[in-house]
């Protein structure tokens, strides 16, 4: 039985989001499924993040999925995504309070 590729990339590490924000474009053509994980490294404000897809890594549209940024230290939130094409990123907006410092993973599988 052959093995299938998998890869977890850390898109943000110890990052606090405020106002409008996006993660960096990440190429995903080789993968069939993805999970975004966000773990809070401290306490902070909340925000809802949306998954975006792109034909070219430059122009983006909403994929339709969204989830919450965790607000208490060591809590984790996630969002499963399938059928996403060549690029993925997250986008969101905070209210007045910055988010907790977060580490963001994108876990990809063939």
């Amino acid at each position, binding site marked *: 039985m052959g093995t299938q590729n998998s890869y977890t990339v850390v898109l943000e590490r110890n990052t606090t989001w405020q106002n409008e924000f996006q993660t960096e*474009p990440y190429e995903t053509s080789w993968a069939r499924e993805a999970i975004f994980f966000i773990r809070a490294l401290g306490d902070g404000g909340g925000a809802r993040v949306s998954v975006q897809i792109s034909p070219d890594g430059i122009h983006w549209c909403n994929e339709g999925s969204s989830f919450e940024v965790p607000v208490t230290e060591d809590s984790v939130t996630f969002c499963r995504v399938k059928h996403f094409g060549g690029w993925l990123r997250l986008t969101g907006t905070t209210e007045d309070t910055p988010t907790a410092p977060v580490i963001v993973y994108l876990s990809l599988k063939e």
Partner: protein
Amino acid sequence: MLDSSRAILNANPQLSRFDPLERILFFDDFDQGLNGWTSLIGNYEHKLESILPDYRDLRPPMLSNLSMWDTGTAGSMSGTYALKLSTRASSDSLGVGIKRQTFRSRGKVQLECYFCFKPEANELKLSELDVRAFGVLFDIQDGRNAELRWMPHLRYLNAVNGQRIARWQFKPRTRDFHKIGDSGKTVSHFHLGQEGWVDVPTDSQELCYNEIATKMNWHYLKVNLDLETRRFISFRCNDVIYDGDALQCIEIPAMPNLFCMLNIGFWVETDVDKRAFLYVDSVLLSGEIE
């Protein structure tokens, strides 16, 4: 190399474009995944804030099929995927990929790869001076009776402040060491700063950028090192061969926990607030290693 060995290499289209030394230590074709190329992070203790600032956000590698907004997918030099490094769209950003190995004897080693570099094609402009530089580094430490850790660094400085430079450079010194945390066991030094680069003392070498930002041409790079004498022997980019005698390496007294280390890294730097990309299709490390 024996004629019979060369004939065997030539029979394999994946290997025939390389000139390996007698033993292939690894051959990474990124159609089979990342092959151990991963993110670089600075050392830390207790909390991530202890990481030196320059090490906190080195951008990670990915697999790319080189899809362009205007022409679709180019694919890699052979197959579909290449290793891709990307900066943020910020002129102080670096993308870095590193592969961590050890060696089993202090012989000669040779790195070969095919690469291309481009800025993000988000403007309908030539943009040939937007990528500042890309480079390859080694981080090596002796094994038994270790005296030195040494770090051969080589970069192609493409452009600075909109001026074409097109020169290869080496780096003889790193920054000061900093203590990290409170155990007394962890230190850190940033070695990819803009300071201290020295031109390889020959002419500039202009590469094949092509005529718009979405046309990619693959280039050949070969770097030869001697682990015994801790020196560059030579390097080659396409049709130009450079002698290694004039090239100096960062040298540091041997450190705990790094014996026989043989790390290899690629990186890319942007000169403007636009992402810079380095693509690498297949990397081969070979050696005269017992």
